């Protein structure tokens, strides 16, 4: 490092195929010193960390998205090239650590050649050589170093504790390159990358395209310009989603490829075949082969991918996951709710009673509470997803589910987002980032919010508990549990049907063909699993937290203002009058007066007026204006319905879905002519409405951010809410016709 560049830590990019243990190595090298952000213009997470080299130099380590090739068609795939080459806004790495999987060396070398051609100093971390040794095979490191022109270090990302040797080589690479930093690399430097013999016509094509590679990309190096020329020839097509390609390079690459095609040649075939020819020629000298044998993974898959057994085991696992989501998370949710209750009480006791205290307790504390209450389920769900991904089972799940998902116009890869949707749509929408094509991503994002998320659960619990008796049918099936299960089944079916309809109308056309690699099974690396849980939880808090908090505060405002002067005067009189009552009755009289005031204030508040205003719209569904107020409240976040109904029915906002008082109030609630408001039919209609309506600001905000447009969130809101209205209408009116 020269003095002028010491103000900036050297950047080391960690690149490799998917499933090479790249992220595990990244976690090992950086520990917990990681920073998660986003790449400019795309919503793929950019994970960077810090690590100290043996000499004491601190470097910045960037986890490049895993890729089989630098060639790209989508904006997301383009990132791997931009990070590794340092073009189009990404900083140029000072060195690259290339993680190769020794057990799949020939395919991994394909990417390695592309990276080496860029001329940036490379250190190869050859992972899983210990696995190879178990099969009786051995890598010739010296031969590999000689042919690749780069240092090769054997590592085991999973088992090694000490990566000194690897880091020494990184320091060496940085030092060797240090003097030339910032200037263009001259051709003398290019000798480093492996040379390949190419057909003469292809050489001419490449030279043509290379002339259009901008100086800011090639840095004056012919070899680098040629590497970009190969990339452009393979990547650019008439309709791609690439954004960082200069116009004349794009035009030249297209023209050259077409000219070759007219001459009966395919530049794709020639480029790819040339790289594999180089690899195949040398593979025998790299790996000393043993006789092929069935691997352990193949034997495990004979069970886990078995047509009957495999599917049964998968369903069993899903039962465990759901059991965890609902039963095991309960005590944790109780803890969170208890803690937030204490915080609210503490705030009440410190702050002088009045508007500000109300704002803090009912707005801010309740808002924070309604965010963190989701954390237990989200953490639990991502524990299972992380475990399934880390062990390699998730790819098998995608394979098992592909046929079902494909019938609905989705791919097996949509399974993880759909599963996440049972906890919360926001992390589920973020999970669609792993899908290759925009069409598939959008389609998944638009149906995931239909899945029964944990915010709907309190509403169902309240209504089912209030309106259906806890009886057992057919000897052992509890009616309440049956209804709850029916709601889950209903939402899942609607989501699948919605996907089928959308994929045949708005998203007509083929999804991406499936190329699904099954990685070898391995024992979970717990820090990686926990790290993923942490990342998901923090991205939930980041994405959804602010929105839910803001909505809860806004909602408090809408339901508290304007103040009803007359009701306040009446309340003051009642309280004064209560002072004359016997002491034993005083407290309950004041409490009743408080609840009455809250309910009167609500009726005259903006939210209350809005409830009245929409009454004609929701009356055909069987809802009165008070339920309308609850629906307004539920728009911020569905579970707010429960506490809003507590206020509406004059019990107070501090109720939960298990509250008997609230259940009794719901049972007792009557229209002016004495008919009960809530019949089981109205309850069913209301649950159907909650199942289908898009009452979640954070979901809309997440989709707005992911699609970078207002159009899709508006579409989602309109289609879900319309669907909810129609379905509730059919349930209620149909039920009335049937005499229910």
């Amino acid at each position: 490092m020269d003095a002028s560049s010491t103000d900036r830590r050297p950047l080391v990019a960690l690149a490799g195929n998917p499933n090479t243990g790249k992220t595990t190595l990244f976690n090992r090298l950086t520990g917990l010193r990681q920073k998660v952000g986003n790449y400019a213009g795309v919503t793929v997470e950019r994970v960077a960390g810090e690590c100290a080299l043996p000499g004491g130099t601190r470097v910045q380590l960037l986890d490049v998205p895993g890729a089989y090739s630098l060639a790209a068609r989508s904006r997301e795939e383009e990132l791997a090239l931009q990070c590794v080459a340092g073009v189009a806004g990404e900083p140029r790495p000072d060195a690259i650590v290339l993680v190769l999987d020794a057990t799949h060396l020939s395919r991994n070398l394909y990417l390695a050649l592309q990276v080496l051609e860029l001329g940036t100093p490379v250190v190869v971390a050859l992972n899983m050589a210990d696995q190879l040794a178990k099969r009786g095979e051995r890598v010739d490191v010296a031969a590999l170093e000689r042919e690749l022109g780069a240092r090769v270090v054997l590592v085991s990302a999973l088992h090694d504790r000490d990566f000194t040797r690897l880091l020494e080589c990184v320091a060496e690479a940085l030092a060797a390159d240090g003097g030339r930093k910032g200037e263009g690399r001259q051709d003398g430097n290019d000798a480093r990358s492996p040379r390949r013999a190419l057909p003469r016509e292809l050489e001419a094509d490449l030279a043509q395209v290379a002339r259009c590679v901008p100086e800011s990309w090639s840095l004056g190096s012919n070899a680098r310009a040629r590497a970009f020329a190969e990339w452009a020839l393979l990547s650019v097509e008439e309709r791609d989603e690439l954004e960082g390609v200069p116009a004349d390079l794009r035009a030249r690459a297209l023209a050259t490829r077409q000219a070759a095609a007219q001459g009966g040649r395919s530049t794709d075939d020639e480029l790819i075949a040339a790289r594999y020819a180089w690899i195949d020629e040398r593979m025998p000298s790299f790996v000393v082969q043993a006789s092929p044998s069935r691997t352990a993974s193949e034997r495990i898959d004979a069970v886990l991918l078995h047509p009957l057994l495999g599917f049964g085991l998968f369903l069993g696992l899903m039962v465990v996951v759901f059991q965890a989501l609902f039963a095991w998370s309960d005590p944790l949710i109780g803890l969170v709710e208890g803690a937030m209750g204490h915080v609210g009480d503490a705030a009440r006791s410190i702050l002088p009673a009045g508007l500000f205290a109300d704002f803090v307790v009912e707005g801010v504390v309740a808002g924070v509470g309604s965010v963190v209450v989701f954390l237990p389920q989200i953490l639990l769900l991502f524990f299972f997803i992380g475990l399934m991904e880390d062990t390699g089972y998730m790819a098998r799940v995608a394979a098992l589910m592909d046929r079902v998902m494909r019938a609905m116009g989705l791919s097996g890869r949509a399974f993880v987002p759909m599963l996440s949707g049972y906890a919360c749509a926001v992390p589920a929408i973020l999970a669609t980032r792993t899908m290759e094509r925009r069409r598939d991503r959008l389609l998944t994002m638009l149906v995931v919010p239909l899945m029964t998320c944990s915010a709907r659960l309190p509403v169902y619990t309240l209504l089912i508990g209030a309106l259906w008796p806890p009886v057992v049918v057919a000897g052992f099936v509890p009616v309440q549990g049956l209804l709850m299960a029916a709601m889950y089944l209903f939402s899942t079916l609607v989501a699948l049907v919605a996907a089928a309809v959308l994929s045949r109308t708005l998203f007509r056309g083929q999804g991406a063909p499936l190329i699904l690699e099954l990685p070898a099974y391995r024992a979970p690396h717990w820090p990686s699993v926990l790290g993923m849980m942490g990342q998901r939880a923090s991205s939930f808090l980041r994405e959804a937290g602010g929105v839910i908090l803001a909505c809860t505060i806004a909602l408090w405002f809408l339901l508290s203002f304007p103040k009803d002067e007359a009701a306040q005067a009446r309340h003051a009189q009642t309280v004064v009058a209560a002072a004359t009552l016997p002491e034993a009755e005083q407290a309950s009289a004041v409490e009743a007066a408080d609840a009455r005031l809250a309910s009167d204030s609500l009726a005259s508040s903006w939210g209350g007026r809005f409830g009245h205003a929409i009454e004609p719209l929701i009356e055909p569904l069987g809802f009165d204006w008070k339920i309308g107020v609850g629906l307004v409240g539920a728009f911020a976040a569905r579970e707010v319905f429960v506490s809003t109904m507590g206020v509406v029915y004059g019990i107070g906002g501090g109720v939960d879905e298990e509250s008997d008082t609230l259940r009794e109030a719901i049972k007792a609630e009557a229209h002016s002519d004495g008919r009960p408001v809530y019949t089981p039919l109205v309850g069913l209609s209301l649950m159907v409405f909650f199942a289908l309506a898009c009452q979640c600001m954070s979901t809309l905000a997440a989709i707005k951010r992911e699609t970078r447009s207002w159009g899709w969130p508006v579409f989602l809101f309109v289609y879900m809410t319309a669907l909810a209205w129609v379905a509730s209408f059919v349930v209620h009116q149909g039920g009335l016709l049937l005499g229910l």
Partner: protein
Amino acid sequence: MALLATMAPGQAARIEAVGGERSFRRRLMEMGFLPGTQVRLVRRLALGGLLELEVRGGHVNLRIDEAAALQVQPL
């Protein structure tokens, strides 16, 4: 020439030609499905409608209809 879907599990074949839409075809070749390369049909996933193939030591699943892009010569 034959299709992978007609082969028996465990059987190996040599790839003769790779077809399909450009980006799918390119990704197949980049993952090692090149003419002249040997593949083995590991299993069919009856419920998934997929074929599990072994190529260059890696296990890759393709959908039965999409795998028709690969023309093979059973060995």
